[in-house]
């Protein structure tokens, strides 16, 4: 039984609501990653598989499946679903050109009031809009976002910023990459920063509902932490624009498997 558990196929679900994409031709990249991760972890070849789902509902459905043991998810998704899906963080991604954390920035039209109350009745658009709990409780912790602000997901953040700049009752919550590119927009002068989040994790690999035996989980954790040093590991990490992984350091929610 122990042997069966140690060699059973574990599936890792990549889920990233708010960003474009689909599985299709991307599968080879996932396959390379999990092959490399399994090898670095001392898992038998073929004992780790990966699938991808770009939607929140699809990702949740897959993660609810008893056959799925691991999740690779952005932090907003983790905040929103960790309780329901019983996600236990294993490692935190170290992203090329970003690092292990990122800052989210709330922006509005330049010249408008920065006071939270002035946003009453506004719509907040963000790639992370699918995770309102993350937006209110984590990213905008300390900023009293009015209760009637509608938080909506968007994959069209440029359109959202155009709406902000044109004076619509809209604000946008930008991730670090987006905020870094605002200055290049022709209407950048119409955008101002309202508030910023503390540094927050970017993405995590987590065990789902204790479906991975502790021994295997620890082996995988150790393997992922040293993946960059494994043969071919750095290349596979680079394909995903990853530098590697670190132990998770989560604000308020850190739990080890």
């Amino acid at each position, binding site marked *: 039984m122990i042997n069966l558990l140690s060699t059973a196929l574990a599936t890792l679900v990549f889920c*990233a609501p708010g*960003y474009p994409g689909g599985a299709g*031709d*991307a599968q080879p990249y996932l396959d390379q990653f999990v092959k490399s991760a399994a090898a670095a972890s001392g898992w038998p070849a073929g004992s780790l598989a990966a699938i991808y789902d770009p939607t929140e509902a699809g990702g949740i459905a897959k993660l609810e499946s008893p056959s799925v043991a691991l999740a690779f998810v952005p932090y907003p998704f983790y905040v929103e679903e960790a309780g329901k899906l019983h996600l236990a963080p294993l490692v935190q991604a170290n992203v090329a050109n970003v690092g292990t954390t*990122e800052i989210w920035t709330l922006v509005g039209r330049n010249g408008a009031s920065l006071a939270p109350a002035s946003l009453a009745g506004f719509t907040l658009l963000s790639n992370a809009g699918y995770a309102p709990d993350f937006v209110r409780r984590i990213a905008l912790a300390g900023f009293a976002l009015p209760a009637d602000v509608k938080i909506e997901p968007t994959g069209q*953040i440029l359109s959202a910023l155009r709406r902000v700049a044109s004076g619509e009752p809209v604000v946008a919550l930008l991730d670090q990459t*987006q905020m*870094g*590119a605002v200055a290049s927009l022709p209407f950048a002068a119409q955008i101002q920063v309202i508030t910023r989040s503390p540094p927050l994790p970017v993405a995590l690999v987590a065990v789902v509902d204790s479906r991975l035996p502790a021994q295997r989980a620890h082996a995988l954790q150790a393997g992922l932490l040293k993946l960059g040093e494994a043969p071919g590991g750095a290349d596979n990490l680079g394909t*995903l624009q990853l530098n590697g992984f670190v132990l998770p350091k989560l604000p308020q929610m850190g739990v080890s498997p």
Partner: protein
Amino acid sequence: MSIRRLLVVMATTLATAALGACSVAPQRATPPAASGPPPRQAAAPVAIPKAEPLASIAHAIEADAKQSDAETNGKARAELALDATRRANDCIGRAPQAAACLYGSALALGLEARVHPTRAMGLLKEMLENLARAEQADAAFADAGPARVTAQVLLKAPGWPIGPGDADKALAAARRAALLKPDYPPNQLVLGQALEKSGDSSAAQEAYAHARRSALAMPASQDRIAWLKDANQGLVGK
């Protein structure tokens, strides 16, 4: 970010994969006399006749794109992309400002981006530049192909700040294509997709219905079947 970057690769691959199917010309029941060589095997070297009409070269590149859509073998796709690039270079060398060459070159870049997803962002940018120049040279070429393909790229490519995807500009381009050649089904289909993405479901339905009517009015062909399928999917919101 890691997942985001991964998605860039995914989305770019998928976007470029989707471009060919949308951008190619219809499989005409009677191909134009100058439509060039018969269907080719991907690996076979192709000698480009010096006197081959420019439009015929663009048509051959479209054929490469169509063949690439159906191809699952990466090596075969790479060969198709090479062939398209060779044809595009030949065309551009002969007439650098011709809409046919700029359009063909754009399609070839799309095929190259499909083969090399890690370089796709730069290739897509160049593709959009060529399409803009093609549209300026002859907006009606390939049934308003430059504007239509521009819309498709802007709809499917990863959005700002990672890629050139831009739903607002896609809608504007789709409107230009549909205005110029309203009864060419792919123009209405891409308009429907752009309207849908911008949140105007009602107008999107009208565009899909228009595409369906236009397709039904055309002679039977594989393209007609595909257009009707896409229009029907749009109408039922799939």
